[in-house]
């Protein structure tokens, strides 16, 4: 009896302590951070979006990083954007653009657009933003992509010319994917450090508050040139753990987050999951740069026949992805249809024997990251078991992501490795960066292919470019340069009160969203 009394007293003390903690006394007087107690999302409050990681800086044109870019695209506008569904170029701050000659681009800018601080958007802002990337002392990680730009010349308040040191047909793509416009006057006045934590742009949302690794709060820009955004306030909340993000979503604290793992989709209501085929592709690289049987095209073709990618897609990825058969996805502007290597283990064995081996004497290594791409290490294990079923021994090596990347760059991987590439909307940024000797990410090289790539890239004639890339795609597939797997599916959790359509380029532009 006495024991029970003590136990009850103890439990009471704990309950009281917990109750004391539940009073909504806020440490920083911040009331918006309390959870939404209603089961659905409340359309009156701020739109809260869950993110895995925080931006490293809020200054545009500095850090090449998906998170940073996605968050700040709500504050800054680009000159040119991509259509959210077709990925075609659409004008934003630029009105039109054209080639003057092979090394000169001309851009005409829109007039009457204001920055958040009231300053006018003009050609100087464009020059300042590009010069920020080019200036070595700023240490912008975009500079490597812009190295061919020689000079930005301001022709008038709303006209600029960009001069490049070599023909640079993909400059428009660089402008669309990398460049956001900064307000020169503001940066010069407050300095780069302050501008990196309190940004000013022409975007749909103005900066309110940034608590690193905690939240970024923005509010609608009343004078936005495309009209005032429908959603008044936005908060990007940083929640690194998927389970915590899911809980926050279930409790109504957040309305939207990206990257539901494919094996967790079932835990969400079906109307709360939206998917889109990403422009990011996954592939199994077959290296012909390391000594071994993969130097022989027949062995590479055999591996293509021995792997049943459709089955992997259906079983390991639960169908979340779209099969690709060549180096480009259908989203890609220069996509050409290529033949598919059918799943045919008998043919695979035959090809290996023709190459002078027997499957049993082949021992291949397969490097894979873990957690970088959907189910990556599981896919690697499944591929290994498919290859083992025709007798090939496969040793799977799971690498930490940084290590995996470094191994690939230093050509220290084994015979095969899993990698992804994207967002990729044009052939040059995929094929040139994967299949030349300098480019490390396919570990496949043939002199004639590199020569063809160089020829095609120099051309400004769209038809000739397309024909060149179509031929390259065929050649790469015939040579079985890799095993094309699939386009990833981007899976988003979205509350029904939010009107949101996923974009092919994975961006989250709140201006395009509204309350239902």
């Amino acid at each position, binding site marked *: 009896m006495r024991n029970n009394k003590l136990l009850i007293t103890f439990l009471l003390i704990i309950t009281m302590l917990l109750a004391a*903690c539940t009073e909504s006394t806020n440490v920083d007087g911040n009331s918006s951070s309390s959870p939404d107690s209603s089961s659905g999302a409340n359309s009156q409050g701020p739109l809260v979006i869950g993110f895995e990681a925080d931006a490293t800086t809020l200054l545009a044109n500095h850090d090449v990083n998906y998170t940073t870019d996605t968050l700040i695209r709500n504050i800054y506008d680009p000159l040119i954007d991509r259509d959210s569904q077709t990925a075609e170029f659409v004008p934003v701050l630029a009105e039109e653009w054209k080639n003057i000659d092979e090394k000169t681009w001309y851009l005409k800018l829109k007039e009457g657009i204001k920055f958040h601080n009231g300053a006018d958007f003009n050609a100087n802002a464009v020059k300042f933003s590009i010069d920020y990337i080019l200036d070595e002392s700023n240490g912008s990680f975009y500079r490597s992509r812009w190295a061919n730009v020689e000079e930005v010349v301001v022709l008038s308040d709303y006209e600029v010319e960009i001069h490049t040191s070599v023909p640079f047909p993909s400059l428009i793509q660089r402008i669309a994917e990398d460049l956001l416009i900064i307000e020169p006057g503001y940066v010069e006045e407050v300095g780069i450090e302050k501008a990196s934590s309190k940004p000013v742009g022409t975007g749909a949302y103005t900066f309110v508050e940034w608590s690193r*690794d905690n939240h970024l709060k923005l509010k609608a820009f009343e004078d936005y040139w495309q009209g005032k955004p429908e959603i008044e306030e936005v908060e990007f909340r940083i929640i690194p753990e998927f389970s915590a993000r899911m809980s926050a979503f279930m409790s109504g604290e957040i309305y939207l987050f990206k990257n539901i793992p494919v094996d967790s989709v079932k835990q969400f209501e079906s109307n709360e999951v939206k998917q889109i085929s990403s422009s990011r592709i996954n592939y199994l690289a077959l290296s012909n740069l390391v000594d071994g049987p993969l130097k022989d095209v027949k062995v590479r073709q055999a591996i293509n026949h021995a792997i049943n990618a459709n089955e992997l897609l259906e079983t390991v990825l639960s169908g979340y992805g779209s099969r690709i058969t060549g180096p480009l996805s259908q989203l890609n502007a220069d996509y050409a249809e290529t033949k598919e290597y059918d799943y045919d283990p008998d043919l695979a064995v035959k090809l290996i024997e023709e190459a002078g081996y027997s499957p049993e004497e082949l021992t291949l290594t397969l490097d894979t990251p873990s957690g970088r791409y959907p189910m990556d290490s599981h896919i690697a294990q499944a591929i290994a078991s498919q290859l083992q079923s025709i007798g090939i021994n496969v040793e799977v090596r799971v690498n930490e992501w940084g290590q995996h990347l470094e191994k690939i760059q230093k050509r220290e991987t084994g015979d095969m490795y899993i990698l992804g590439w994207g967002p990729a909307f044009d052939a040059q940024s995929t094929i040139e960066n994967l299949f030349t000797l300098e480019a490390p990410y396919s570990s496949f090289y043939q002199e004639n292919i590199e020569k063809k790539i160089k020829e095609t890239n120099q051309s400004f004639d769209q038809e000739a470019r397309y024909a060149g890339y179509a031929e390259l795609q065929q050649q790469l597939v015939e040579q079985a340069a890799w095993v094309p797997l699939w386009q990833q599916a981007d899976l988003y959790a979205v509350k029904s009160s939010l009107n949101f359509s996923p974009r092919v380029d994975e961006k989250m532009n709140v201006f395009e969203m509204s309350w239902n």
Partner: protein
Amino acid sequence: MLDFIIKRLIQVVIVVFLALTAVFFLIRLSGDPTTLFLPPDAPREQIEEYRELLGFNRPLYVQYTDFMKGAIQGDFGESLRSGDDALGLVLERMPATFQLAFSALLLSIIIAIPLGVLSAYKRNTLFDKASVGITVIGQAIPSFWFGLILIFIFAAQLKFFPSSGGGSVNHMVLPVITLALYSVSRFVRFTRSAMLDVLNKDYIRTTKAAGTPTSTLIMKYALKNSLIPILTLIALDLGVLLGGAVITEAVFSWPGVGRLLHQSLMNRDFPIVLAGVFIIAIIYAVINFITDILYAYVNPQIRVK
């Protein structure tokens, strides 16, 4: 006494130096950060250029001596990603981590000491067995799992508390309970055995025989005498709580030093990681140092040794 303090201070410096040295070389095993910062299509000469800009092309021993020279002056360099002062970023996060660690410690003490005392006093009863059983489970449960279970029940299902983030008392409840779980279990077990030791002493028996009321016996004679080892454990645990909250902070998205370190490790932002390790090593060493001094003050035999 002065000799003793000087010796211990030298030890603090050595501990911090060794911790920094070990971490400096260990994080370099994780790969070259330049490759992660640059876009994947960066040409090789550009990668080399950035390697030079960030100083990664120098021999490792040169990087190490330069780093140590800076560290001695409190200069850990700038974040490789954002260019902000690394030590500044770490110090900015300290208040949040302190808030979490001290709250967890306080909660642990409030729960664990009465529980440990009662367990000892009621040795071998159902209450004792239950509390020992619970503490064993408490020590065995991994904190990230316990944290996720709390989030699932109290945030996702019951919606009592927010699942993540920082800023209000509401946000603190679940991470504090998670963090306190391990300390509570340790404290209960330790208090219980320390109390049992004292309760078996002759003077307690004599006091009891003299008719002293139970409460006075426990509070005045037994607990007071068993407090010294318990206080040592509490001090040591504070170090663990301040430095070891990485996982709890990550699970609850608590914006403290642990989160920053975790994120910086993933981003290969070496200066921030090293600045964080420096601060945590100092806290740990200083807490140990103070405990040693207090011990020596209380027990002169230690000084002589």
